[in-house]
């Protein structure tokens, strides 16, 4: 009983910072995070949350490191939505769904993919990518560009 209570306390403590899913580690040119209808200029060290959308201008690029040690970056003219993210640092279970609407993306998958190979999915307008522990790049070019 005592252990269970203590465990609950630890779980609660973990939950306090579970909202931060990642952190901006690189930002050059125009970089924004769209959060609840607001467009915030992204700065180094700024937390990235679930449901944020990372947007770069024509001269922008940005890099993010996530709590499961996955890292990603976007190049100029990109829109990347972090649709779902959760990671349990005790069990390493989690899920990571991101969607590249346009632009370029580079990804190095992290610990949750090692734990469960179906944990990470990246979507583009026409495709869905399942990620089995790897590094990859994606480009989406809108017609006329």
């Amino acid at each position: 009983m005592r252990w269970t209570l203590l465990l609950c306390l630890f779980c609660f403590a973990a939950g306090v910072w579970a909202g931060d899913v990642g952190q901006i580690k690189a930002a050059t040119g125009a970089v924004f995070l769209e959060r609840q209808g607001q467009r915030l200029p992204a700065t180094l060290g700024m937390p990235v949350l679930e449901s944020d959308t990372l947007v770069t201008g024509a001269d922008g690029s940005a890099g993010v490191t996530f709590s499961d040690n996955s890292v990603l970056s976007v190049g100029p003219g990109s829109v990347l939505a972090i649709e779902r993210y959760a990671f349990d640092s005790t069990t390493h279970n989690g899920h990571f769904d991101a969607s590249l609407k346009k632009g370029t993306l580079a990804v190095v998958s992290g610990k949750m993919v090692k734990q469960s190979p179906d944990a990470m999915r990246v979507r583009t307008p026409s495709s869905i990518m399942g990620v089995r522990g790897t590094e990859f790049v994606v480009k989406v070019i809108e017609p006329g560009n």
Partner: protein
Amino acid sequence: MLVLVLGALVILGAIYAEPVPPEKTVVVPPKAVVQRPPDETVVVLPSPDGHTGTVVVQRGGERHVLNRPFAASRLAGGQSEMVQLSDAEVRQSFAVTLEALPARPTTFLLYFVRGTDELTDESKQELKKILAELKQRPVPDIMVAGHTDTVGKLEANDLLSAQRAERMKGFLIEIGIPARQIQTAGRGERELLVPTADNIDEPRNRRVEISVR
């Protein structure tokens, strides 16, 4: 007489004539704009250790399994295909994006004296390397994950591993790392570095893993 017959024929003809359909408004469809989907390219890269993982691309009914370095799945002009690209063309095409990719997290392993949250003497020396690594990064943060061997119950090991992580956080704060940059987790006996049966005293499993990222 002839006039009468002709008159009757005209009348009959009028009766049997096809009814003239009421005039319809002809809708001319606007010239159809074919909305072509955006072009897409997905490429698998080898990791720095030379290993290449797998990306499975599902596009409509198609499924492309990319598991060789620079294997790519492409959608161009509505045509979907698998192609092999070269290192050079991928690095060039994604140069700015790859330049922005944050350094991969670096991991350090430190070991504990059995059943305690005391570091072994060798591991105390490792702390200096962690400081050096921190200086390499523009906005460093640290994840400290504690682990145990399989001696004792799962719940007790969850607690011990969390204590080890917290103790380590204390060391890191002592050597000058701000507390807000450090997160901790206890993984208990879930991730044995050296797989063993239950209740095995294994020093290499009594460790903390520190990710500098």
